[in-house]
Each structure stands twice: as structure tokens, then as C-alpha cells.
């Protein structure tokens, strides 16, 4: 029965010119978005591969110099783009995927003024994720707003119900019909996506399939909720026109107004300094002494420890290269300070993300967007993980160089090394997180989506049970 109803709904939709046009446009946009995403993704990945190879070569062939100068020479670290970033580039457009690493500085590689952008900006950059998040709900509304209201208005509902059809069967059948129509539209996109996914050269292969399945699940929850809400409204609405207006209002709220408001609210509740303010705060603390401790005092204390350790009372008498040791002390003096400032900034960004997830209970778009970016490995949490690993790597590299200098006593400032050392320096390897790590920060978003789906199904069911003939 349910299948029979679904089949008829599907047949009607495929014959209705309006639906064909709307569906065709959305399917086409999705294909274009996938194509653009693919293009961007393969460009970035290819560029990375070349850059990584060149970078190491440049590093190793920097010639003869002091190890500390080499630390200042610096290296680039590249964030591997996940396979799924072509589907949802998330925040990568704003955070970037490259970091410049050098001695004494945790570079301010992160500033994301437009990270959370508003919805119009997201429309501006056509991504497959945006099509699924914004346009598919609109299509669902167009496909299903008249499911009940239209049949009631035209009078076919009287005849159908006079046959003794169960109202719940009617509701489930119509829901399946919409799902079928969407499936039909998505077939080419899913096939293209799957092909792209298997062909994608990913620097981070971690859990590609699992992430894809999770991602599909998240979108099913999201779109299912829209089907439920649309049918529920169609049952309750006085007329098809009223149903359409109400549902478009719902769409505007969920897809345009709420994300905008959530971003503004998140910024107000968890304010972050501007680039200039952040830089000024760093400079000011440096001026007054990091953590209230003057560098000279810090150095003096460490020097006394060092002298005591070796049982000498002058640096000249030390069996190590004092200049190299001092470079490392100055490095460590700065590190604690970077840790503090960046942790504070990044915690704020994370708090903003967490807040937006919570708004997902009011507007499911925010929930699915958060989950989508996270599963695609392109959200802020993934970026932070990369940035922190890159910073740890920077410290290892700088320490490696400074320690080499320290261990060569007597050479002083004029100590020189060459490729022999440079090629032994550690290379950066990103430890990509597994899918479980990705979703573990998304429990709020997931809960919001599940709740929306369950509620909308209950709503549609109970509305259908009380379906009025006229």
C-alpha cells in the first residue's frame, strides 16, 4: 500500500514540469558544485605534493650556516586536505592550509574573520555541501508542500479516504515518494561523488569510507527532518498556498536567519580580538615581560641552574656551547607565552563553534553544517589539531638545531653546519585524526539532528492521524 502510494507520488512529480525544472536545476547545481570542488581539491593537493617535495629540498640545500640561522630560515608545513574536502571545504578557505614555521615565533597563521561567514557568503561559493544544506530543503518543500493540502483542495483526498486508506499509510507513502524523487535526482551526483572520492588523491587517507558513511547519515537525518516538517505542515495547513508560505518562512528562518543570528550571537558571547588587537596584546606582554617575568631575570635564573649543574661559576668554563644553549632558553621563554595566547584565542573559536552547534536545536542547518565540516575534516577543530601539531613540530625542529649548537662547545657564535645536519632534521608528518575523533566533538550537533528527525516524524504522524477531509 505504502509503496503503491509512493510510486504514484513519484510518477506525478516526474510528470510535473515545475518539479522537473526545480529538480533539474538543483541536480545541475550539485554537479557543478562537485566539479568545482573537485577542481579546487585536486589543484590544492597537487600543489601540496610539489611544494612538500621542494620544501625539503630547499631546506636541505640552504648551505653552510649556524644551526640557529637555519631555524630562522624556516620551513613550511602543509595541512593535508582530506578526501572529503572537495565536498565540503568548510573553513579551509579562510584558515588556509599552510603554515610558515621559524624560530622564536608561533606565526599567526590563524585568523579567520570570515570563518563562519553568513549564509549569503556560503551561497556565493558554490559547494556541494551548501547545495545539500540550503537548496535541497527548498526542493523538498516544493515537492511536498501540497502533498496533503493540495489533495484536500482539489478533492482527491475525499475519494482516497472514501476507499478506506489508512491515514498513516498515506503519510508514509507520500514521505517515501519525496525521498524517491530526491534519490532519483541525487543518483548522478552520488555516482560522481563516489568516483571523485575513490579517485581523490588524499594526503590523509584516515577513515575516508567511515567518514563518508557518517556524512551520508548526517544529511539523511537533516533532509528527513525537512520531509517530516513539510508533510506535517501540509496536513495542518488550511490551503496549499498557506502551507507553501509557512514552509518558505521556516526555510528562511532555518537556512538564512538562524545561521546569521547564531554567528552574531556567538561573536557577542565569545568575543575574539581582531588581528591587530591580538598582535598588540602579544607585543605588550613581550614588553612587560612574559607572565610578568622579565627575560633577563628568566635567563639569569636558568643560567644559575646551569652553572650549578656543571659545578662551574662562569659560562666560559662550561663544557657546552653557551650561545646555542641560550637560544633554546629564549625559545622556551617564548613558547609558554604563545601557548597561553593561542589557547585563549582558539578556545574562544571553539566555544563559538560549540554555541552554533547548540543553536542546531532551533535550526538544524547549524547542526548539519557543523557535522559536515567536521566529517570532511575541514572544520576549525581539525585546523587547530593541525596547527598544534605544526607548532609542536616547530619546537622539535628548533630544539634539534639549538641543541646541536649547544653540544658543540668552543665554537661559539661562529659555529657552522651544512647539509649533513639539515638532512637529519625531522620532517613534518601530520597525524590525521580518525572519524571517531571527528564526531566526538559533534555530539550536540548529532543530538540536535536526531531530535529534529524524530520530532518531525512524530509531528507528521500525529498530524496525519487527525487529517481532515475538508
Amino acid at each position, binding site marked *: 500500500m505504502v509503496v503503491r502510494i509512493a510510486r504514484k507520488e513519484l510518477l506525478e512529480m516526474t510528470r510535473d514540469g515545475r518539479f522537473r525544472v526545480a529538480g533539474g536545476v538543483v541536480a545541475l547545481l550539485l554537479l557543478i558544485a562537485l566539479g568545482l570542488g573537485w577542481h579546487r581539491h585536486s589543484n590544492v593537493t597537487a600543489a601540496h605534493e610539489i611544494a612538500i617535495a621542494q620544501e625539503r629540498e630547499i631546506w636541505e640545500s640552504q648551505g653552510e650556516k649556524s644551526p640557529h640561522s637555519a631555524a630562522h630560515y624556516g620551513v613550511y608545513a602543509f595541512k593535508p586536505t582530506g578526501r572529503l574536502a572537495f565536498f565540503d571545504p568548510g573553513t579551509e578557505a579562510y584558515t588556509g592550509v599552510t603554515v610558515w614555521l621559524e624560530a622564536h615565533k608561533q606565526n599567526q597563521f590563524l585568523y579567520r574573520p570570515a570563518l563562519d561567514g553568513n549564509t549569503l557568503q556560503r551561497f556565493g561559493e558554490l559547494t556541494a555541501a551548501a547545495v545539500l544544506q540550503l537548496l535541497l530543503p527548498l526542493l523538498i518543500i516544493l515537492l511536498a508542500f501540497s502533498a496533503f493540502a493540495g489533495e484536500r483542495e482539489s478533492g482527491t483526498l*475525499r475519494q482516497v479516504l*472514501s476507499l478506506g486508506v489508512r491515514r498513516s499509510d498515506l503519510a508514509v507513502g507520500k514521505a517515501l515518494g519525496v525521498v524517491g524523487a530526491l534519490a532519483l535526482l541525487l543518483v548522478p551526483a552520488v555516482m560522481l561523488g563516489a568516483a571523485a572520492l575513490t579517485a581523490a588523491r588524499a594526503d590523509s587517507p584516515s577513515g575516508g569510507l567511515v567518514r563518508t558513511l557518517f556524512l551520508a547519515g548526517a544529511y539523511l537525518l537533516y533532509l528527513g527532518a525537512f520531509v517530516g516538517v513539510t508533510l506535517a505542515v501540509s496536513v495542518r495547513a488550511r490551503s496549499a498556498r498557506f502551507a507553501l508560505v509557512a514552509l518558505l518562512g521556516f526555510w528562511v528562518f532555518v537556512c538564512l536567519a538562524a545561521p546569521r543570528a547564531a554567528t552574531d550571537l556567538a561573536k557577542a558571547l565569545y568575543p575574539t580580538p581582531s588581528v591587530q588587537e591580538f598582535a598588540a596584546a602579544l607585543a605588550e606582554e613581550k614588553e612587560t615581560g612574559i607572565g610578568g617575568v622579565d627575560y633577563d631575570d628568566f635567563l639569569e635564573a636558568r643560567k644559575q641552574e646551569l652553572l650549578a649543574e656543571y659545578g662551574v661559576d662562569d659560562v666560559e668554563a662550561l663544557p657546552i656551547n653557551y650561545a646555542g644553549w641560550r637560544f633554546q632558553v629564549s625559545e622556551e621563554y617564548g613558547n609558554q607565552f604563545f601557548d597561553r595566547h593561542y589557547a585563549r584565542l582558539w578556545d574562544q573559536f571553539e566555544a563559538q563553534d560549540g554555541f552554533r552547534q547548540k543553536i542546531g536545536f532551533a535550526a538544524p542547518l547549524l547542526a548539519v553544517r557543523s557535522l559536515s565540516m567536521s566529517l570532511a575534516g575541514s572544520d576549525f577543530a581539525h585546523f587547530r589539531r593541525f596547527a598544534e601539531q605544526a607548532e609542536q613540530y616547530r619546537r622539535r625542529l628548533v630544539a634539534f638545531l639549538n641543541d646541536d649548537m649547544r653540544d658543540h662547545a668552543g665554537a661559539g657564535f661562529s659555529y657552522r653546519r651544512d647539509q649533513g645536519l639539515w638532512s637529519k632534521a625531522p620532517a613534518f608528518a601530520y597525524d590525521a585524526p580518525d572519524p571517531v575523533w571527528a564526531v566526538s566533538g559533534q555530539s550536540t550537533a548529532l543530538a540536535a539532528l536526531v531530535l529534529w528527525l524524530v520530532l518531525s516524524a512524530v509531528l507528521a504522524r500525529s498530524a496525519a492521524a487527525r487529517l481532515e477531509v475538508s
Partner: protein
Amino acid sequence: MLEAIGLTKLYGSFKALDSLDLSIEPGQVFCLLGANGAGKTTTINLFLNFIEASSGEARVHGLQVAENPLETKKHLAYIPEQVMLYRHLTGLENLEYFTALARHEEYSQDQLRRFLNEAGISADAIDRRVSTYSKGMRQKVGIAIAVAKRAKALLLDEPTSGLDPKASSEFSELLKSMSGEGVAVLMATHDLFRAKETGTHVGFMKQGRLVARLTTAEIGHADLEGLYLEHMHG
């Protein structure tokens, strides 16, 4: 087969139907006559459980409609004043869908075509979308749907409005043969001539009340018209 006991429908304090008592046995064709607004459609809606009775009850095959909404509909077929169909589907696809919903999956395409043919849809129209159909053709599809349902009782709400005289007369023949097979029919109509032709009983309804009931065997056509005018405007 169809039974109303003190059936009443109020809209606020307005009595759309006032304590209707009615019993239609298998093979009987009860024609409900009355001006617009008399309460004919209300009666049929109550048998279909589309609206809730204010008091009294409607029964189909001995079962209370309000308590057995799905079970009682198995015994009923309904043709509204304006049969509405799915405009993007063909006549055949519409019939196929409606019969499937009535849980008659057993018909072959040929049988379905025959139902439409017998209801008066020409062979070339059967596979056309119904958006090209006239009102009369839609009524005919409605008739085919009702016939295919093989119901024990028919609820007809001015089913022949919009049909040409030939189709209307064919419909009368169909009704006669169905009542001959033991189907109980409740038909709201304005057509005194058809009522006399096909009805076994007629009832006059005025402002929600059934003011008179007669068997058609007792009266001639001229008498029926006279009686109608007498009861309605007298």
C-alpha cells in the same frame, strides 16, 4: 445495509441534518431529493465518517461508522458531485491507483480498461492524461472506480450532474443492474426523472429533515413532481 438512526449534524446551533432515520436494504435504491442546502451531502459525509455526527449514528453492514471507519469503508463506494482525479496521470493510471488503494490488486490492465470502457470512456481517451478530460469524463472514471470496488453499498452525491443524457441513461442502467445484484444505493439527486426511473424509494429532504418517503412503485412521474413541489414549497 445502510442505516441511519437519529442521525443529526449541528453546525453551531444550525441543524444541517435533523434526526434522520433511514434504512436501505440490499437491492434498494434510495433517492434523496431536496433543494441545495437541504442536507444531502451532509448525510453522505456522515456515512463516510468525513464529519462527526452530533448525535445518532450511521451504520454500514451493521457496523457503526464512527467506530469502524476503515472496516465500514470496505463495503462502500462513493461518487462525489465532482470526481477529482490526478491530472498528471492517465485515466487508466487513475483507475489503477484508486483500485489499488481499495485493495483490489487483482485486476489486469485489460480488466481495468474494460471498466473504463463500460463506464463510457473511449479507448483512445483511456491513455490520455485526465487534465484533458471534460467533467463528464471525470464522472465516468468515478463510476468505473466505484464499479471496480465491488462494494455492497453505493453513496452517490449527484453523480450524473454534468453527464450528457446518453451517459446519464447508461448510468441508470448500470445502477439498475447493480441493485439487481444486491447493492444498496443512497443517491442524492436533483433529477426527478432519473429518481423515478432508477429509484426504488425516494425521500424528500428539507432543511435537514426527511419530510416524506415513498416507494417509486406507488407513484407516476407526474405525481412525483407534484409531490416534490408540494413538500418543498408547500
